[in-house]
């Protein structure tokens, strides 16, 4: 998400699934779209029917590859090198869409003189502090345009008390807050639109990616130069004024220690090709399941609040002013952050939130660092976290290094599991793998487990926000059986009971709970009305009337809004998410089905679908354009979609000096959430691991990084605890790469599929996929058993020997990859070992997500049982000398 957020200003998919059918070329990488998103994939098939070229880049030949025009096998985790190779092809052959690049990106911006590239520092950018493992991004900054820029910034700064606060922003994963608002640059900066200045972004980028030649790509990824050229040819010949190409990705990019930068590389490529904001273009971020987009918009994350407002930090944000100061007044709509923040506080605390008490800003919890899921697990193991809620999640199977998850849960005082099924996370204390090995003993586990049955999606009403930022309303079809309850009712009831217990308290600490606006209309069953909740999220004005757009939000406390980017979903007091006009009764954009944030725009940054002068780039790719005749000659943006721009801002508009917020958006600044109005080829701020992507090896890798002495992402977040031993790289003990994934037939950690006969019978057992060469090398037989080993544990699975897994040639050696679907665990109709138990925890420094690839050994036969398993894995660790302190790389 910060990959997209820092590039374009918002962390959501830039386009919508249906629009993929308008693409002339679709590149799917980091996603097995046909298997994981079969319904959305119909639009890829539709594009293919219309003549588009479909390319699938993936370690395995999957059901997506089967219908693609070209499958390019790649070593898992090496995507930046491949995409970097494409960027190099574009730049070194002058194949970029120059007019677009100059006008709409920061290609022309001049970067500070003291910036040093990884090419100068053997794999590090300037500003790296080896002590903390973090970057200071100061040297990546834009050079100011004039003295005036600096003065403006100083004046803005003086309006707040206290000093600068950029310093610690990365520590608390601040990059995630760029979900709907770019990182705050100090100024728009000096530009050289000839792109000739050696310090301009374009030239820096060109030098940076020059190293990614077809030969290097082959050495890193195992992709033949001819294949790279074919992909480059397909993309460049299907981009430009007349044609567009789209990218689709999913967790195959996000779940890496360089995940955000993989997405950045794709963003850079799509910007150079001029494909963002245009029909048939864009980057389709495919979300893992039903409301993952929704759970970042209205987050279940520790570091952001609804609408991507940053969670206040205990050290940096003592007041409302300090909280918003970095962003307030910056160019673009993110500059109005105070209005969004105050409106959120008003929705939480209602009348209690007043200007005099900073709108109850002090009631908000603060973060002090990393409180992400894996850090929390560590805190459980160490006894610092006593209680845990698991809602619709099965970390005993679905999270990496499952043993750590289970050891953590076994050390809790209490655990609440709300789920549809009796999942492994609720039963680990009696049937988990550690019970079998004797590492845990049921009688000695003190955790009190509360299992609460939950209502399914057909047993409750509410909205999902799916992959294309679309809210779709579900009505309740049947009453939930027995004690099953909706999450909404559960949390409402929990809050009500806690407030009852605290009623009358005079302790200041209880004020945040007691002052909450906690009043919702209830139905006969005591269920809060979900539409009332949606209305609150949408926001209301001084007299309680619903608002229709976030531009109506005010910083003075007169408006209330639960999530500013969702403002408009209840416009006209109508549940807009419940609109269900079929697409065949509408035009291609189908704006009357559901509701899409922001402002029901389907393609983001669609101002870029027109040339700088406001006319469509071509008739074929006409989408949104400037109609100079409209509004009695005052002019207006119009077209197929809701324009993602100030509606009446002429293409030739130049902001006044010192303009702030939306007033500072120029007529040719399509990226209205960016603090400079431009898309970022180079990120001067906002990412923890560098302004440009560069290839590092996964934390566990069979090969040395051919590019630099720096083997791994230097800023990766390491979990150096005994429960998370790391396989040494280029080790003979763990010579193979493994990668985990999903199958169409199952749902994530299996709670909703292993328990259902019709799904379980379709893929009834865990299996691993290996190439014929690897099968021969290790004596594996199709249909037989194999044991797969890492430093964490060993699991068993049946073997599929298939040519769909390819031996990859990297230089003079072969790399073999083992494919492992991860759906199984000890419970359900069909059972088996969980592949996620093999995965190590090394995290992306921007979003703290794990790397889904690692190294392993694979042997024929079933794994040892009981305590013999522990000994078996310990022997591997001894052989790999894993207990010995290794040289840091």
């Amino acid at each position, binding site marked *: 998400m910060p990959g997209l957020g820092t590039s374009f200003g918002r962390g959501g998919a830039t386009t919508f699934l249906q629009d993929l059918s308008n693409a002339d070329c679709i590149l799917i990488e980091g996603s097995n779209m046909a298997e994981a998103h079969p319904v959305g994939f119909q639009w890829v098939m539709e594009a293919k029917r219309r003549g588009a070229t479909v390319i699938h880049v993936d370690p395995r030949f999957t059901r997506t590859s089967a219908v693609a025009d070209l499958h390019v096998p790649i070593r898992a985790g090496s995507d930046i090198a491949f995409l970097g190779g494409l960027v190099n092809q574009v730049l070194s052959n002058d194949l970029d869409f120059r007019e677009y690049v100059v006008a709409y990106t920061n290609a022309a911006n001049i970067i500070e003189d003291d910036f040093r590239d990884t090419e100068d520092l053997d794999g590090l950018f300037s500003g790296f502090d080896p002590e903390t493992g973090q970057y200071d991004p100061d040297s990546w900054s834009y050079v100011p345009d004039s003295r005036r820029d600096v003065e403006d910034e100083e004046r803005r700064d003086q309006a707040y008390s206290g000093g600068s606060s950029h310093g610690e922003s990365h520590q608390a994963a601040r990059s995630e807050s760029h979900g709907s608002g770019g990182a705050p640059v100090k100024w728009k900066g000096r530009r050289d639109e000839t792109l000739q200045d050696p310090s301009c972004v374009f030239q820096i980028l060109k030098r940076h990616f020059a190293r990614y030649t077809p030969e290097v790509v082959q050495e890193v990824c195992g992709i033949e130069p001819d294949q790279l050229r074919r992909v480059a040819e397909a993309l460049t010949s299907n981009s430009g004024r007349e044609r567009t190409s789209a990218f689709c990705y999913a967790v195959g990019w996000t779940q890496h220690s360089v995940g955000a930068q993989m997405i950045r590389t794709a963003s850079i490529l799509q910007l150079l090709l001029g494909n963002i904001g245009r029909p048939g273009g864009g980057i389709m971020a495919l979300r893992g399941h039903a409301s993952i987009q929704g759970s970042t918009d209205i987050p279940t994350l520790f570091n952001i609040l609804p609408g991507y407002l940053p969670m206040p930090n205990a050290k940096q944000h003592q007041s409302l002013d300090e909280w918003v100061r970095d962003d307030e007044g910056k160019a673009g709509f993110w500059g109005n952050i105070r209005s969004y923040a105050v409106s959120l506080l008003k929705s939480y605390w209602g009348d209690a939130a007043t200007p005099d008490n900073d709108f109850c800003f002090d009631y908000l919890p603060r973060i002090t660092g990393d409180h992400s899921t894996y850090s929390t697990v560590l805190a459980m193991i160490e006894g610092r976290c006593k209680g845990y809620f698991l809602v619709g999640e099965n970390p005993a199977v679905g999270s990496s290094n499952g043993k750590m998850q289970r050891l953590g849960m076994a050390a809790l005082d209490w655990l609440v599991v709300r789920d549809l099924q009796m999942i492994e996370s609720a039963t680990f204390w009696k049937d988990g793998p550690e019970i079998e090995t004797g590492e845990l003993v049921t009688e000695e586990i003190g955790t009190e487990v509360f299992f609460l049955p939950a209502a399914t999606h057909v047993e409750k009403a509410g909205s999902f926000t799916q992959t294309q930022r679309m809210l779709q309303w579900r009505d309740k079809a049947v009453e939930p059986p027995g004690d099953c309850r909706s999450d909404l009712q559960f949390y409402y009831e929990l809050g009500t009971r806690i407030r009852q217990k605290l009623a009358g308290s005079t302790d200041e600490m209880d004020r945040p709970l007691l002052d909450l606006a906690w009043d919702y209309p209830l139905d006969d069953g005591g269920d809060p009305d979900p539409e009332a909740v949606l209305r609150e999220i949408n926001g209301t004005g001084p007299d309680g009337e619903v608002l229709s757009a976030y531009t109506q939000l005010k910083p003075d406390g007169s408006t209330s809004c639960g999530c500013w980017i969702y403002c408009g979903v209840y416009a006209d007091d109508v549940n807009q998410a419940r609109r269900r006009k079929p697409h065949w009764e509408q035009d291609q954009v189908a704006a009357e089905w559901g509701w899409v944030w922001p402002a029901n725009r389907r393609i983001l940054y669609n101002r870029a679908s027109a040339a700088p002068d406001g006319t469509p780039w071509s008739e074929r790719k006409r989408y949104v354009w400037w109609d100079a005749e409209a509004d009695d000659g005052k002019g207006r943006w119009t077209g197929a979609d809701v324009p993602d721009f100030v509606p009446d801002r002429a293409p030739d508009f130049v902001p006044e000096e010192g303009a702030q917020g939306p007033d500072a958006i120029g007529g040719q600044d399509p990226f209205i959430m960016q603090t400079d109005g431009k898309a970022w080829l180079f990120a001067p701020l906002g990412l923890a691991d560098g302004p440009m992507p560069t290839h590092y090896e996964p934390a566990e890798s069979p090969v040395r990084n051919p590019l630099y002495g720096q083997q791994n992402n230097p800023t990766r977040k390491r979990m150096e605890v005994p429960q998370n031993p790391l396989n040494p790289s280029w080790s003979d003990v763990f010579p193979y790469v493994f990668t985990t994934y999903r199958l*169409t037939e199952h749902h994530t950690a299996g709670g909703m599929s292993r328990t259902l006969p019709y799904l379980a*019978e379709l893929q009834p057992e865990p299996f691993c996929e290996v190439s014929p060469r690897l099968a021969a090398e290790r004596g594996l037989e199709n249909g037989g058993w194999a044991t797969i080993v890492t430093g964490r544990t060993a699991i068993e699975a049946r073997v599929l020997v298939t040519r769909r897994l390819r031996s990859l040639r990297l230089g003079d050696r072969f790399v073999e990859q083992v494919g492992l679907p991860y759906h199984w665990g000890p419970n359900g109709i069909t059972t088996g070992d969980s592949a996620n138990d093999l995965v190590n925890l090394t995290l992306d420094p921007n979003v703290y997500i794990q790397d889904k690839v690692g190294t392993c050994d694979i042997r024929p036969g079933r794994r040892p049982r009981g305590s013999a398993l522990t000994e078996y894995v310990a022997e591997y660790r001894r052989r790999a000398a894993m207990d010995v302190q290794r040289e840091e790389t």
Partner: protein
Amino acid sequence: MGSLWGRLDDVQGDAGYGSPSEHPPRMGFFTDTSVCIGCKACEVACKEWNSVPEDGYLLTGMSYDNTQELGASTWRHVAFVEKPLDVPAVDLGMPAMGAPDTEGVTWLMSSDVCKHCTHAACLDVCPTGALFRTEFGTVVVQPDVCNGCGYCVPACPYGVIDLRKDDGRAFKCTLCYDRLKEGQTPACAQACPTESIQFGELTELRERAARRVEELHDRGVDVARLYGADPDDGVGGDGAFFLLLDEPEVYGLPPDPIVTTRDLGSMWRHVGAAAATLVGLGVASFLGRRR
């Protein structure tokens, strides 16, 4: 009983539903395997709607096909065929791992189903009348009539219909007769995300399929061919027919199916002739004796 063999344009009329204006048009499936993504949504939707029980939890080791074949408890079956790539794939319009390529592979997927034959041997041999021709031209078993004799099982040239072991009766795809009666699309076609399974009037589907083959041929996919679309074939054409990207055998389909009751008429004629001869001989012998 209607005709047993040969071209038959009004299958419902032949079954006693009157002239074409007196019954609905013949409905069927056109399964375009060139857009199948092997999601198996058809299998699940079919079981869900028709309450078909699970059919065993067996990992076969045969690619992603753990269903194996059609049967009493499997009315849709998605075949997965992994084939080494032997010709430059771009020419086939099929995926390539880089051509020419000795390691490449293609992965064919195809959702199989009861063919709802124009001349359905299962129906013709059913002694109880449990199997019948519907007004939509489809072939359906009535579970409350079936006595489990099993005559239909070897009669089917495709090996579709089968007896459910713990139940004893014969089951197969009904083309969602109950849904058709309500004007709805069969569950499998409704669930198919890529329109690989298309439901409609058979005559229209045949035209659509011919156009699709032409389109694929124009794009260089020379291997595209129809299976079961020809009303002059051994079963008089299928009510559920396919667009394939390889020989039928590759998908486990018989290359040239012939209705097993094709020769029933001539057999009866021969039997009749033989009987007449016998009778004639007998009579003659008597007559001879009298002589």
